[in-house]
Each structure stands twice: as structure tokens, then as C-alpha cells.
């Protein structure tokens, strides 16, 4: 149902995504460099603070690549989630005038962010070569992890964008929530230093298992912790299921309320 709708409207999805990508790169002088510079600068700052000033254990991984490997997918998560959340409200004119499946709006924002992510990833490959990290068969588990992450973003965005139509505070609250979420995710520190006691609660954050998984499969060449991934995947599917149901339920109210 969800995918059939998307397939039938793939042209709109494509054009709306293209519109966002083009508009973003046409407006700024540095254009494409912004998406590369942002995680890069964060990585540099984190490296200075957390490996030079405060010693954060990294399971033996050099701090720059330790943090970059997490910052890159996190950057995708946070930009996709926040742009998708405001996507419906930002297109109120269209929503009041023409009908096509509303999930196209958040999805096109997510895909536009994915495009940024792919561009920013090119620099990651340079890092891998510099640190002489071997890509093995296990590294391809990253694709599975990435798919879980994608579904999580879709679920959260469907819910967030619909809720934003009803309550404009969602937009303001979101920046704050994402910031806290980042500290609740093993980005500047490894998952291994999280106390055993709070681990069951900690892992309910699906991004925790995913980010930890990326480090394991790409940098350390280890299999991911399947228990963690299982928890992440279950939470993700639950979130997607209920978000999609909620979205469908309120979808026809958008034009009246927006």
C-alpha cells in the first residue's frame, strides 16, 4: 500500500526532491562544500576536546575516524528528521490546493538529505584509506544497518511532520530533542563505557545499536552485536508501524488545519 502509492507518484517524489536539492545548492555560494564541511568541523572539534583535552576511550580506534564514522550517519539522521518534520508545514500552499499522497513531502526531504549524506561520505573513504582500514565482507553489514536507520527516519518523520501540523512547537522542540538524542547515542564515546545497569534502557534508543554497529563492521571489521541490532530493528518497526497509522489517520485533516 505504502510502496504502491509511492511508485505511482514517483514522478512527484522525484521532482520535489530535485527541487529541494537544486534550491539548496543554488542559494549558497559554497554549495556542496557545506555538507562536507559540517561533519568535518564537528569531527575536528570533537577530536580536540575528547582526545586531546578529555581522554575518552575509543576501543583503540583513532579518535578522528572513531567520531567521523558516527557523525556522518548522525548528521544524516538529524538533518533528515528535522527537514522532514517541517516539510508539511512548509508546503502548506500546495497541501491546500492539490492532493497527492502526503507522505511524499517528508520522504522527499529525507531523500534530499540522503543526497547530502552521499556527498559527505566521499570524504569518509579518504579517511578509510588514510587510516589503512580494510574493507571486508563484514563491512557490507553497514548496508543493513543503514536500511534500519532509513526506516527509523521515515517512521519518526511521518510522525513528526504530522504532529507539526497540529502543534507548531514541534519545530522548536525538535532541535532540542535532537541535541539530547545525540548525547544519548554513542557518538562522542563508545557504547562499551555505558554502565551495565542502564544498558537495557539505553538500548531502547534505536540509534545506539545502529551507530555502534557501524563502528564495529566498518572500522573494527567485527560482526555487529546482533542483540543490539535486533532491539534497534524492533523499535524501528514499531515506530514505523504506529507513525504510519497515525499519519494515515490524520492525513485528511492537514488541509483544514495547516
Amino acid at each position: 500500500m505504502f510502496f504502491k502509492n509511492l511508485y505511482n507518484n514517483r514522478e512527484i517524489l522525484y521532482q520535489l526532491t530535485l527541487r529541494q536539492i537544486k534550491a539548496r545548492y543554488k542559494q549558497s555560494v559554497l554549495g556542496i562544500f557545506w555538507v562536507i564541511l559540517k561533519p568535518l568541523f564537528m569531527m575536528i572539534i570533537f577530536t580536540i576536546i575528547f582526545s586531546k583535552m578529555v581522554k575518552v576511550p575509543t576501543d583503540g580506534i583513532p579518535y578522528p575516524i572513531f567520531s567521523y564514522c558516527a557523525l556522518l550517519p548522525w548528521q544524516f539522521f538529524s538533518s533528515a528528521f528535522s527537514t522532514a518534520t517541517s516539510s508539511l508545514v512548509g508546503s502548506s500552499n500546495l497541501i491546500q490546493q492539490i492532493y497527492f499522497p502526503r507522505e511524499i513531502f517528508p520522504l522527499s526531504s529525507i531523500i534530499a538529505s540522503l543526497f547530502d549524506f552521499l556527498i559527505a561520505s566521499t570524504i569518509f573513504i579518504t579517511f578509510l584509506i588514510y587510516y589503512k582500514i580494510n574493507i571486508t565482507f563484514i563491512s557490507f553489514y553497514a548496508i543493513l544497518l543503514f536500511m534500519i536507520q532509513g526506516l527509523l527516519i521515515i517512521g519518526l518523520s511521518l510522525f513528526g511532520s504530522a504532529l507539526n501540523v497540529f502543534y507548531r512547537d514541534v519545530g522548536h522542540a525538535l532541535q532540542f530533542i535532537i541535541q539530547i538524542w545525540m548525547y544519548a547515542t554513542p557518538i562522542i564515546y563508545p557504547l562499551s563505557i555505558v554502565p551495565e545497569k542502564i544498558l537495557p534502557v539505553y538500548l531502547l534508543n534505536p540509534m545506539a545499536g545502529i551507530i555502534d554497529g557501524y563502528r564495529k563492521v566498518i572500522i573494527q571489521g567485527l560482526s555487529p552485536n546482533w542483540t543490539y541490532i535486533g532491539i534497534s530493528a524492533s523499535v524501528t518497526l514499531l515506530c514505523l508501524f504506529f507513525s504510519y497509522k497515525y499519519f494515515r489517520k490524520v492525513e485528511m485533516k492537514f488541509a483544514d488545519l495547516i
Partner: protein
Amino acid sequence: MNDIAIRFNSVCKSYNVRERGYRSFHQEISDWIKSIIVHGKPLEQDTGLSSPNGIFWALKGVSFEVKKGEALGIIGANGSGKTTILRLLSKVTLPTKGDIDVSGKVAPLIQVGAGFHPELTGKENTYLNAAIMGLSKKEVDKKYDDIVSFAELNGFMDTPVKRYSSGMYVRLGFAVVANIDPDIFLIDEILSVGDLSFQRKCLDTMGKIRKSNKCIVFVSHNISAVRGLCDRVIWLNKGKIEQEGDPDNVINAYVSYMTTKSTFINDTSYVGGKTRWGTGEARFTKVEVLNAKGVRVDRIHAGDKIVVRLEYEAFQKIDSPTFWIGLMNKDEIKVFGTYYNKNRVGEYAVNGKGSLSCVIDSLPMRPGPYYVMAGIYGDIGDLAIDRIGRVAEFKIESMNGNEYDDYNGYGAEGAVNLPHRWNHFDKT
């Protein structure tokens, strides 16, 4: 049965006024706390339908049909439910009660700017807009040249649309819709933006669309456009159909209703103004007749130059209003009328105080008293904003030696004295 394109069957649409528009958490929370303090427990969520409070019925049982090949006009004051009907037709919202059958592809003419992104070029926006209407890239490729030439935007398609004029925007928007071949066309106000020749072209196109068994729903304040385009007109009043049928009948009924509802009628506040009516967004503050030297006069001679000076105050921004003056003689015959509007000077707007004058180089009229009438009309229709009968008066006096006045005996008839000469060729 099959020739019905649209059927509305006692359609009602309500909005929960409380819910209308977004809310913020703190509003929600403070309401919740208040309800606990007042009632000791949270209030049941008001579902809307149960209580008459907070419910706004935008449509109250509207039924109509539109046949294929028909053009339906919908007129009515603001808030009468016109836009709601368009939204229901384009399926962005659902009726609260009743049902709607629509057969065929519906294409709304999307408002200026909504479907366009200012940073993108005309070409990119064309593809975007067409995709929103449900066209694939291949289909747009085929129609692209037609769209460009229809919009008369050759050479501008690689320019970002933020550099377009509002007329160019509308042309492109209309060109896309006109070329995607929908079965049902929804057109909102929009056409008043383009220039006259493009408006004509749009109307012609819509005429062609109608002939090809497609149907048009045209929602507008522009009464003359509705009259020119539609086969049938519905007049909506507060969510109900007040009248339906032949355009002339319905429009006349609507205009006379709106005139009686005008905010002021038979207002004699203006000195010399015997009757006055209008919707009141702007009013004349002074109307006077001046002579060639710019001095106010009430007596002139036939053939003299006069200047009618109008001062007005607009209480809000009014786009391209029409100013009108007319001259009436003692027999209450309109001997002359003229108007000033965007056809003369292009798009403009008024707001606040202003004045304009009409210079009449020669007034070749019979002696007697004359009255000036003045009116301001909206850009979009026949409704007066301010209309005064007999706002000023002057007298044309006879004068010996004046070419117009020498022969004013019995047989010199008619409202005007046209400049003329007699020749007699076989005089003995």
C-alpha cells in the same frame, strides 16, 4: 448518467473553529490545567459534531451537478464557501456529510507561487508543476514546447522564476494546466493577474476546453468573467446555494442583493450627493468641477473645457479599482460616461488618500443644469465600492456669439449639441 462529471449530494463541511489553525503545547496544557481546576477532571475532548459551539459550517447541504462540457461559475461573498467547494473537488479535504462523485482527472490551477520554487528556472518549475499534476517526465517532454509558446515565455525558461513578473508567473502556471489535458478544470480568481490579451487567451482556451467535453468550475469575484465564460452560475451565500441557473439572472440577483447589503445606502452625508451606496472600502471625499484655469465653477458655456476632480480615501489596499464619472442632464439622461482603470494605465493599487482628474476639452451640450455622478468599483466585478449620484452640479448657460448657442430655438433638440455646419447649394 455518464455525462455527469461532478455530483455534489447534500454536501456539508464543518470546521472546528477551536481546532482551526494550529495550536501550541502550552495552550493545550493550560487548557487542560484550567479544566482540571474548574471541573476537577480533564474535559472530554470536544469531538466537534456533538456541540454547536466552536463549529463553523462552511457548507450546509450543497447539491449540484456539472455535466461534461459545461462551465459552472460559483460566485458569492467572502466566506460563502466557494473555496471549500474547490478544496473538496481537488480532494484535499473530505466532506463532513454527504457525498461527492467526480469522474475524471481534476486539475486545479495552483495559486501563483505555490507550485513554484523561486530559485528554480522556468523550465525546472514547469517539470515540477506538471509532476504535481500527475504527468510523467516523458509526457512533459512532449508538451514542453507547447507550454512555452502558450506562456509566451520563449527565452525566459532558463531564468529563475524569482525574476519573473506576476504576469509571467500566472502565464506559466496556466500554460502548464492548459496543456496537461485534465477532464475537470478548477479555476480560482487567478486570471485577474495577467494582462488583458493573456486573459483573453485563457478565456479562449477555456472555451475550447469546454467544447472538447471537459468541464470547468470557475470560482471568482470577477462577475464579468463569470458572465462571459459560464453556462450556469451558482450563487453561494453562507454555505448554501442561494440561486442557481442562467448566468445573467443569477448575477443580476447577486449584484442587487449585494447592493442592498452595502454598508451605506441612501447616505446623504455628502453635500450634494442625493444617493450613495457601495461596499465602503474607499470613499470619495470631494468631487468638483473646475474650469480651464482650475477654478471651481458652477456655470460654464457650451464648448468650454472642464476638469472633473475626484478626491478619495481608500481605507485598505485596493488593487486596480475602476474610477467612473458620468454626466446626467435635467431629464435624467446620461449624456456621457467614462472610466479610468488598468486597461488605460496597467496594474496599479490605491491605499490612503489620493486624487485624480478627468479633463474634458469641450462640452458641446445644450444649455441647462447637469449633474456629475461618480463611482469607484473593484477590479473584480460590478459591485460599487462607492457610488454617488448627483455629486456635483453645474449649469451650461447660453451666451450670444457662442457657436453652440446661436441657434437654440425650437427644433434644436437632443442631449448634446454636436459640432456641425449647414451648407445650402442651390440657394436662389
